[in-house]
């Protein structure tokens, strides 16, 4: 993985679909905890603790995780609303990690954000016209036909009445306000839109309207989205690829269908099984559910090794000592786990379960355990077969270890 030289990269206006638009390597954000008279730093909240991913032009990357896993901090880091502690953010091949406010300004045009709460993200004392035209003023852009005309066009694009130009935010409902936020984000024709929980404050019926709107706008304007959400069904609906975060780390990063059909990380599997299904006939189908015990550990002192080992039912000794790397086990599916589901074990020599894991297994139905063992064995056999068949089995991630 070579990174393009900083000086050589130039900003081209349109990245071709599929090209890497945003690249993040080893990104960290630690919020210091200060104590005492001298405000000495006594620790840090490791909100984001070393993540790597890239966003390709034209795609939607969904980011899911429980509250406190660092997904919102990640969103603010890539839009440079927060200063990263370490790591690198590259936008269109240009390192933007430590650009100053002035140097960031031209880039702000290309990276926009949609916020979660449509009530607090709009200034109550400004009219809709002022709010949506603010990006033009800040960037000194004079659109064709004047700012007002352009703002009215944007309002109609997001499904609002252009005549509402002079109204104030309080005159709109939650869904309409979210549309105003979207219109503002789209004003300067950005390349990347980071949406932090864009629909979670909205009612179900309105949620669907906004999800469809985001869909349509992407198709029309060729936008690239990073959508941060905690609702797994919404994320599946909007994303092409999905990153699952836990305690500041990416646990699994995979294409949507692969992730939902055969999740490899136990955490992903538990997360998916916890989503309540709107089907009363499955009420008694408790057998498929994996109940995680307890709460997410504190990000101030995250567990050693794999961060999920305290709640994982497959955790062994190696999980407490060695942090699993995020490795591409299957094309398009990167997983950070020693004992993945639906795949060959990455540390087969280590079989003794931790006592915590035995406890955690009580929350997992026997059917799930049996099935997972069966699929893992099947995949392992398959992998072995392919490894034997191919002369240079080195390509295969599982074979490498043997």
């Amino acid at each position, binding site marked *: 993985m070579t990174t393009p030289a900083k000086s050589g990269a130039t900003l081209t206006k349109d990245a071709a679909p599929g090209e890497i638009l945003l690249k993040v390597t080893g990104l960290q954000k630690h919020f210091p905890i200060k104590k005492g008279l001298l405000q000495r730093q006594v620790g840090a909240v490791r909100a984001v603790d070393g993540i790597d991913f890239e966003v390709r032009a034209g795609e939607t990357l969904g980011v899911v995780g429980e509250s406190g896993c660092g997904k919102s901090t990640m969103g603010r880091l890539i839009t440079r609303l927060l200063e990263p502690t370490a790591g690198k953010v590259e936008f269109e091949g240009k390192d933007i990690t430590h650009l100053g406010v002035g140097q960031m300004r031209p880039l702000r045009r290309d990276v926009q954000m949609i916020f979660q709460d449509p009530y607090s993200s709009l200034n109550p004392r400004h009219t809709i016209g002022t709010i949506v035209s603010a990006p033009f003023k800040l960037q000194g852009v004079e659109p064709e036909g004047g700012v007002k005309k352009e703002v009215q066009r944007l309002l109609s694009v997001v499904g609002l009445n252009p005549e509402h130009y002079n109204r104030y935010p309080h005159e709109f409902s939650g869904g309409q306000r979210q549309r105003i936020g979207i219109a503002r984000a789209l004003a300067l024709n950005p390349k990347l839109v980071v949406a932090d929980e864009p629909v979670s404050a909205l009612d*179900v019926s309105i949620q669907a309207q906004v999800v469809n709107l985001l869909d349509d706008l992407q198709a029309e304007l060729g936008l690239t989205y990073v959508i941060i959400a905690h609702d797994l069904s919404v994320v*599946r609906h909007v994303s092409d690829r999905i990153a699952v975060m836990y305690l500041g780390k990416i646990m699994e990063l995979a294409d949507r269908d692969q992730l939902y059909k055969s999740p490899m990380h136990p955490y992903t599997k538990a997360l998916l099984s916890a*989503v309540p299904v709107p089907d009363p006939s*499955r009420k008694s189908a408790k057998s498929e559910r994996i109940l*995680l015990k307890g709460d997410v550990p504190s990000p101030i002192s995250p567990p050693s090794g794999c961060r999920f080992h305290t709640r994982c039912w497959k955790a062994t000794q190696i999980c407490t000592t060695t942090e699993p790397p995020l490795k591409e086990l299957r094309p398009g599916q990167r997983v950070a786990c020693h004992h993945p589901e639906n795949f060959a074990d990455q540390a087969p020599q280590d079989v003794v379960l931790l006592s915590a894991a035995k406890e955690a297994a009580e929350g997992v139905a026997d059917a799930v355990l049996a099935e997972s063992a069966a699929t893992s064995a099947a995949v392992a056999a398959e992998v072995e077969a392919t490894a034997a068949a191919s002369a240079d089995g080195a390509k295969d991630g599982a074979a490498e270890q043997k």
Partner: protein
Amino acid sequence: MTELSKSRAAVAEPAGTSPAPSAFLEVRDLKVHFPTDDGMVKSVDGLTFKLEKGKTLGIVGESGSGKSVTSLGIMGLHTAGQYGKRKARISGEIWLDGTELLSADPDHVRKLRGRQMAMIFQDPLSALHPYYTIGQQIVEAYRIHHPVDKKTARRRAVEMLDRVGIPQPDKRVDNYPHEFSGGMRQRAMIAMSLVNNPELLIADEPTTALDVTVQAQILDLIRDLQKEFGSAVIVITHDLGVVAELADDLLVMYGGRCVERGPSEKVFYQPRHPYTWGLLGSMPRLDRDQQERLIPVKGSPPSLINLPSGCAFNPRCPYADVPKDDITRTVRPELSEVGSNHWAACHMSQEQRERIWTEEIAPKL
């Protein structure tokens, strides 16, 4: 002005001569209206339902559809005058185990509240008192209804915390709410509401503030506890997934009224109201193949001061023109039986709805 002077207290109209019902909880024609400067807000406008012991009723609807106001009405929490001088106007009948609550003596209702009926609130952080330990709050709830000394009550509090799955309950009982995580606070709230073995438990958005993994734990807990205590449960939520997990019966509310009510299998598999179709079409589902597009309900929820005339759903209903003579815009539809114990309020004939559901809606879900 006359309206205001009349409403010195929440006006509870005397219960009619109708006989006490056989069901454990029966709500008849419940109306909760709030007078405001802009007009009367009809938060709940004629709601009727029954609930038996050991059963769970799910109430679903969007924000402002009157779900929470209904639950507060059953608990008798509107009368306290928390809206300043403008108190709620409540009418109708609420029968709980043979007692009519709205016309009953407030002191009597106070004795029932917490003991016979209890509530789990949405946001445990604001429902728990930050100055008192979890233990003190549970002990208070227990001692109000049971003449026991503090030691016994504390033992009971520890026992309840243990029952709802809080680790080291004998230590945790002395913690303050801020020392608990979100899921544990919700567990503590559940412990507090169950400490008196209530026969009716109302859970108002019990998991909305929680993560999915914790939500799964809490839903499991509510289900287990119900089995153990045999209480009647009302779950109020906007999440159809949550009600599908818990509820035996379902009540869909829109604009302060019930638009569809029935056994949850019926409401999920053969819904007979366009609003229910809309709700089902708006939600992305994990148990189905990826939908191409969601089918949202157009427009936004109505104002409760000025409900659309006729059927309150008509401005958003794609089938508003199916019934003849503009009846949807002039006449308010009443609930009519569309199957055994399954009711819906729609002007379309049952054949029309059946046809639209099977041919147009169901294939797209």
